[in-house]
């Protein structure tokens, strides 16, 4: 398969992630959308890496996976403490401050 297919796939994943972050109101789904965006980048990087026959892209992917994991840890921790206080996963109810 040509490179462009992978790139289009990555771009589509990324767009789905962006739209998810911007439109969904459930905190967990928003977190998942962000993960989706990061994985779209991974797909893009790996396909470029394969196309260029250069390993650095794949190494970078490993870094991104690690970072994504720690981001998820922080994100989930925040979600939990928010749930303790408010008993909700809905972003619209998190509005002490003007958004």
């Amino acid at each position, binding site marked *: 398969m040509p490179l462009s297919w992978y790139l289009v796939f990555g771009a589509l994943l990324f767009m789905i992630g962006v739209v998810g972050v911007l439109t969904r109101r459930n905190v967990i789904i928003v977190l998942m959308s962000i993960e989706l965006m990061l994985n779209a980048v991974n797909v893009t990087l790996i396909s470029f890496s394969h196309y260029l026959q250069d390993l650095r892209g794949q190494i970078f992917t490993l870094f991104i996976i690690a970072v994504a994991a720690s981001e998820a840890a922080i994100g989930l921790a*925040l979600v939990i403490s928010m749930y303790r206080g408010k008993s909700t996963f809905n972003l619209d109810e998190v509005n002490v401050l003007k958004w």
Partner: protein
Amino acid sequence: MEAAALLEGTAALLPHITVLVTGLVVLVLDLFLPPRGLGQAGSRWATEAVSLVGLALAFACALAQAGDEPRAVFMGMAVVDGLGTFFNAVFVLIAALTVLLSAHYVRREDIRPGEYYALILFATLGFMFVGSSSDLVMMFLAIETFSMATYILAGLLRDTPRSLESAFKYFMLGSFSSAFFLYGIATLYGALGTTNLLALSQAMSAEGTSPLLLMGMGLLIVGLGFKVAVVPFHMWAPDVYEGAPTAVTAFMTAGPKAAAFAALLRVFAQGFGAPAFSEEWVPIFAVLAALTMLLGNIVAIVQQSVKRMLAYSSIAHAGYAFVALVAHNAAGAGSILYYLVAYTFMSLGAFTVLMIVARRDDQRHVFDDYAGLGATNPALAAIMSLFMFALAGFPPTAGFAGKFYVFSAAAQSGYYVLALIGVLTSVISVVYYARVVILMYMHEPDAEAPRIRLAPTSVAALSVTAFGVLYLGIFPGGVMQLAARSVAFLFPG
């Protein structure tokens, strides 16, 4: 990697390593010091003392590298050059001032000192690596390092909804923008086959522009635009700054912002600096700068909370520094560094006053809480006026000198309109900065307003920042010369 190269790299990154070790020491110390009861005061002082000593050491290491030949270490991942060294010094200064101004806050709000100061130090480490990175991978990791530390810092007051909400919004938009930044890196990697900034700029000069390259550039602008909070990527900033603990807000307006500008300088002034590429991004940046100055200053006028007003003011000031980026000349790059130092003093100082006036539970942030401060606390009111006038850009303060350098750089590149917008929006800004002064001096205080006793550490933080604001305003030459020398290599000839 060979041992010699490893050793050389370690020596080159000594300032970073010092900060890292200090952070780890603070973290471990926290395990052994008594968290409650009689030993609590001692634990706090010990943590703060260790942090300050570590930062002083790091500052000394950074100074020792001044004037070194630029060299890449760790296989081109990091670089030691004037820009990195200058930023290292600035970041360490920001961290030290934050420790000073937080000391009182940590006690008042009962924050565990170990985690607080360790996070400050780890965030500082992240800043420093942003300033020293010469590879986009490295830069991404560094940005994530400081971002994660600041997400946690923003949510440190776990029991207050405002703090949590601030942390969550910061986290969401932070990781959202990181994804854009990453996607930009991936695209550039695909277009040119490298993520090293020097290799990138060479490859670009050889191959010229391509759609993929421009897309990558655009994505990087979006990603970093979020980090700097430049309009239209600013909407997270007011909420996050307002909700975060005030000491953390102070840190966030100075540190992450300066780090993001370090990244912008590295990527755009250094990586995409060649004329063929700068003509692609400079017009975009010019529009962003104009929008940021206009929106930041105009929206700040209608705010009811001083903290939120300063959040918008922080957006506006990013706009001024952006003008210098648009100028894209040696004077401009130097003036960004100068502006960041000046803004650090002004902003940290103003937030220190905010923190003191807010009193216990960090509540009193509306304008009316400042009524009559001139009568009840003349010294505090006088110093707050100094910071307000400095932020508004009155001479002889650092705020004026900074704007002057920025606008003269813009004029030098022919961006008179941008300079004019900058100067006129500064006039607008007088409206809301002066409002604080008006309230402090021209209104009667609340009947029950008590005289505030200042903690010695707060006095120290205020003295240092006030001295910085005045010194940089009256004798800007020295620091500016250092800044100019640090960026001279970006614009040879």
